[in-house]
C-alpha cells in the first residue's frame, strides 16, 4: 500500500518561463518533455545523494573546465610527492623556476578568462591543488592578502606552491610586499602595481 510504480505520475508546480525553456530544449533534443524533466530531477536527486546541490556541482564544473582548458592534468599525489622529494635535493632551483613560470602563465590565463582574476585564483587554487584546505582572500587599506592553508603539505611542496602563487599574482600585476611560508601555510601581502614590473624595476634602479 502506498508504494509508487515507475509508471505513476504526479503533477508539480513549476515556473512558467522555465517550463517554456524545458519544452524548447526537449524538442531540440527530440525527447518528450516528460522524459526530459524526469532526467533533470533524477540529477537533482543524485546530487543530493552526493551531499551536494546542482548549483554547487555546476560551479565546480565551470572551474574544473577552466583548469582543464588551462592544461591541468590529474595525477596521483603520491607520485608528485615522490618526484618532488627526489628532485628537490638536486634540482630545487629548476623546479622553483618551473613552478613560477607556470604560475605566470596561469595568471595570464585567469585574466583572459575572468573579470576578477584574483578571486578566480582563490576559487580555483584548492581545485588545482587538492591538498589545500583553505584559501582566504582579504582586502584592507589598499592591500590584498592571500592566506593558503594546506595542513598535510610538506615544506618543499609549500615552497613550490608559494612560488606558483607568486608567479600568478605577479602576472596579475600585483607586487608581493610580504611573503611568509611555513609547512602548509602561505601568507602573501600584495599591492597593485601602478606600472608594469619591468618599468617599475627600471625606476627603482634610478
Amino acid at each position: 500500500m502506498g508504494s509508487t510504480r515507475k509508471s505513476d505520475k504526479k503533477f508539480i508546480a513549476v515556473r512558467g518561463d522555465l517550463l517554456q525553456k524545458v519544452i524548447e530544449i526537449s524538442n531540440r533534443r527530440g525527447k518528450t518533455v516528460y522524459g526530459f524533466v524526469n532526467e533533470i530531477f533524477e540529477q537533482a536527486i543524485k546530487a543530493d545523494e552526493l551531499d551536494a546541490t546542482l548549483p554547487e556541482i555546476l560551479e565546480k564544473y565551470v572551474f574544473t573546465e577552466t583548469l582543464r582548458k588551462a592544461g591541468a592534468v590529474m595525477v596521483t599525489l603520491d607520485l608528485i610527492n615522490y618526484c618532488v622529494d627526489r628532485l628537490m635535493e638536486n634540482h630545487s632551483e629548476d623546479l622553483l623556476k618551473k613552478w613560477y613560470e607556470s604560475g605566470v602563465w596561469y595568471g595570464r590565463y585567469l585574466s583572459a578568462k575572468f573579470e576578477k582574476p584574483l578571486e578566480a585564483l582563490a576559487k580555483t587554487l584548492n581545485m588545482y591543488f587538492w591538498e589545500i584546505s583553505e584559501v582566504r582572500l582579504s582586502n584592507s587599506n589598499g592591500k590584498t592578502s592571500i592566506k593558503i592553508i594546506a595542513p598535510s603539505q610538506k615544506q618543499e611542496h609549500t615552497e613550490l606552491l608559494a612560488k606558483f602563487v607568486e608567479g600568478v599574482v605577479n602576472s596579475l600585476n600585483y607586487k608581493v610586499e610580504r611573503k611568509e611560508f611555513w609547512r602548509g601555510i602561505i601568507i602573501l601581502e600584495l599591492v597593485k602595481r601602478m606600472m608594469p614590473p619591468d618599468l617599475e624595476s627600471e625606476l627603482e634602479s634610478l
Partner: protein
Amino acid sequence: MNRKLLAVRADIAEKLVEIAKKKNVTLFSLVSEALEQMVKAEARGENLKKIVENHLALTAAREAGFTLIPESLWVALVEKARGEEGSMAAVWREAGEWLGHYFKTVEPEASPVSLAERLIRGILWSLSEFSISTGKDGSLTVKCVGFRCPKSYTRLLSSFIQGLMDALGYKIKSGEIARGIILMKFEKAREGES
C-alpha cells in the same frame, strides 16, 4: 509569477518532496533550482547528466589520491625522474584499480564499457582522443591519443588503464604504446583471474 503544472514520475516527485523537507525549502524552489541549472548547463552547450557524472568521477579521483597539476609541471617532473618508471607505473596501476573497484561498487548496474569510458574521459585529461569499442568476441579495444604526452607519461597512462580494466574484469590481450599513443586490447578475465 506565472506557475504551471508539470507531470513527473511519482517516485521522483516523492523523492524531491523528501529532499525539499530535509533542506527546509519549498518543493517549488527546489524544482526551479534544478530547472535553472539545466538551462545554465544547456547555455554552455553541456548536459546536466554528464556534469553530475563528471562530478562523481572527480570526487572519486580525489578520494583515490589524485590531484590536479599543470601539465607542463607534471611532464617536467616525469622527465626529470627518469629511471623510476617501474615504481611510478605501479602507483598508477593501483590508482586505476582502486577507481575501477570504487565505481563497480557505487554503480553496480553500469556496464564496464560505460564505466571505463567515463573514467578515462573524466580523469585522463591529457588525452585529446579516446575511444573504446567492443569486438564480436566480446573483447574491448581502447585507443588513446595525447599529442603532448612524452613516452614516459604515456606509459603511466597505459598502466592506469590496465589497472582500471583489471578491476572491471578484463585482462590485457595485447598492447602497443608509442609516444602519445596507446592501443590496448582486453579480453574478459575468467573467474579469479583479474
